[in-house]
């Protein structure tokens, strides 16, 4: 890893996409996330790092209200997407999730054809008027996910028959088929081998031009490689948030420094 390169990396945009203020999450009695304030910029890769159980995935799942599906989870605080409160009563979480796509830790394609996997989102949201439009969306999504050339001749085959890395890129294609504004990725490479990881990371960097990408990762190297901004979580607190170069080379908080240098975690 060339550390010098991180320092020089700049953030392209300073437009804020998501604003979170005073976010608290409780799982039953457990206070899992304590008073988190974060601004996530548009067209930027933001990485959440931290030891296991620090609340980074919990926070990620607040951003598209996936925590709603956990019966015992309670979310407090204010999270705004483009200035609109996403926890407002009038917001339909189902529609929100089309705007804020998600890619999970383990590749989880539907046991359906590759085509149907990608077409599922546009279909249920009624985004296309006819088959030709749907075909076009499937193709562009697979192209953006750098999977088109590998699967274009077998779109009718089952998505579960692909290799692990291909499956994960299929899941990315599925997530971007509904043209989301934000793409959330929960440790997208933890189940992949190094080659597939490299492909997905390259893809994340390309996706940055169209989406705001938020990625949770255990690997500090990965955070350093793909992100422009990094947030460090520890024991449910947001310890430090800043430009990736600064976090990795000149952390302000001693806990960040300990984690980066491998003393905690």
């Amino acid at each position, binding site marked *: 890893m060339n550390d010098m390169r991180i320092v020089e990396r700049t953030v392209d945009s300073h437009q804020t996409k998501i604003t979170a203020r005073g976010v608290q999450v409780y799982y039953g009695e457990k206070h899992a996330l304590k008073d988190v304030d974060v601004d996530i910029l548009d067209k930027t890769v933001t990485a959440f790092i931290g030891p296991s159980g620090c609340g980074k995935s919990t926070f990620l799942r607040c951003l598209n209200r996936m925590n709603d*599906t956990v*019966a015992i989870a309670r979310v407090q605080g204010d999270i705004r997407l483009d200035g609109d409160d996403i926890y407002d009563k009038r917001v339909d979480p189902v*529609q929100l*999730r089309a705007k804020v*796509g998600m890619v999970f830790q*383990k590749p989880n394609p539907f046991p359906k054809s590759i085509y149907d996997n990608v077409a*599922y*989102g546009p279909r249920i949201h009624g985004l296309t008027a006819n088959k030709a439009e749907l075909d076009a969306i499937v193709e562009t999504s697979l192209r953006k996910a750098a999977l088109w050339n590998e699967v274009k001749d077998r779109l009718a085959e089952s998505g*579960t028959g692909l290799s692990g890395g291909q499956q994960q890129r299929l899941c990315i294609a599925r997530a971007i088929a509904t043209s989301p504004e934000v793409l959330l990725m929960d440790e997208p490479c933890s189940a992949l081998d190094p080659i597939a990881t490299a492909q997905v990371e390259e893809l994340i960097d390309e996706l940055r031009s169209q989406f705001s990408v938020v990625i949770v990762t255990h690997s500090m190297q990965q955070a350093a490689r793909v992100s422009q901004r990094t947030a460090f979580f520890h024991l449910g607190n947001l310890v430090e948030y800043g430009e990736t170069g600064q976090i990795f080379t000149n952390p302000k908080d001693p806990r960040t420094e300990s984690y980066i240098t491998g003393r905690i975690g």
Partner: protein
Amino acid sequence: MTDMTSHPGPKSIDWTSDEIGARVRKRKAAENRLRYIGLGAIGIAFAMLALLISSLVSTGWQAFRQTHVTIQVTYTPEFINPDNLQRSNYRGLLEATMLDLIPGATNGRSVAAILSNGAQFTARDRIIADPALMGQTVTLRVPTSDPYDQLAKGLIDRDTPEANRRLKNDEIAAFDALLSQGVVSKPFNWALLGNADSRFPEQAGLKGALWGSFYALLTCFLLAFPIGIGAAIYLEEFAPKNKMSDFIEVNINNLAAVPSVVFGLLALAVFLGWFGMGRSIPFVGGMTLALMTLPTIIIATRAALKAVPPSIREAALGVGASKQQVVFHHVLPLAMPGILTGTIIGLAQALGETAPLLLIGMNAFVTAAPATPFDPSTALPTQIFIWADSPERGFVSRTSAAILVLLGFLVMMNAVAIYLRNRFERRW
């Protein structure tokens, strides 16, 4: 790292010592013991099954053949009135035919009793269907009555003293005369499947019971399948997890363990008592069986829904599917093999269920197969119950044969369940 020095290092272990050797031998012996106990258990189970099947087959196989006599009947005006074919003297016609057939026979009643009571109706139906046969001779193959069927199958011991025997010497002699003429045959007993119940074993069949069971199971399926799946989906996917849903869950599990006779009493009180539905009706039987099958289907469906990996639900939720879309587009199709398997096993259970059907009167003596689910009839298990209870010798082998038919259907249903499970099993 400094801790290491304060602990004594592990003692060096002599893996070849007698002590360790004995331990290894003991462990091996224990493993072998377990294996032989397991093999023994399987062996006993198989032996029991083999015993059951072989006992059924050894008594039941005879019922799949029925002794018939081939007779030449001449429709003479002496017995037949062409103007009233319905009420002509067919009994007399058969007596005359049999007297002709058996040399030296004098007692017409006695020799005609060799033939089944249904023979006169066979003779009647033949000429009613074609009145032009008047004055002509036709060949009829009619079943023998039960005692002679037993005799032909060797189930009546000729060495028994005459006083203790069902057939007297002259009756046996008459039948032997028929045998020597080569007019006695033992073809496959189609009546067993094609006739409804009868007082006479040689004419009794399972048609009514098969239709009754079919209608009852159809009703049971049409009620229990949608209701069971609906309840399971709601409980598993939508119901809030609280005391109330726990209470419901415990009660459904308890319902599955309630003895079936209790469901029969419930059906008797509610369907027959309050709603005034008819007795012996397959539709009511089906509703009763549905009560019993519901918990089984609900439990199987919930288990199948639970087995769908959460990652599939998350994936669907993640692209913005609503709860209902997640269930109907993804979870339910994946759970379908499990649901179908559970349902078929539930139905197979219902097919063999006797007690609730007895209580709603499906053990009635009905001599016609039901044309609709609302006509009185018996069902397979209750038919077995009736036959097992009948004194005629011929019903002994027919009871076993009916059990074999029932077992055949059960095996078939289970085979379908296994096929569906393998066919639609998906990997993810």
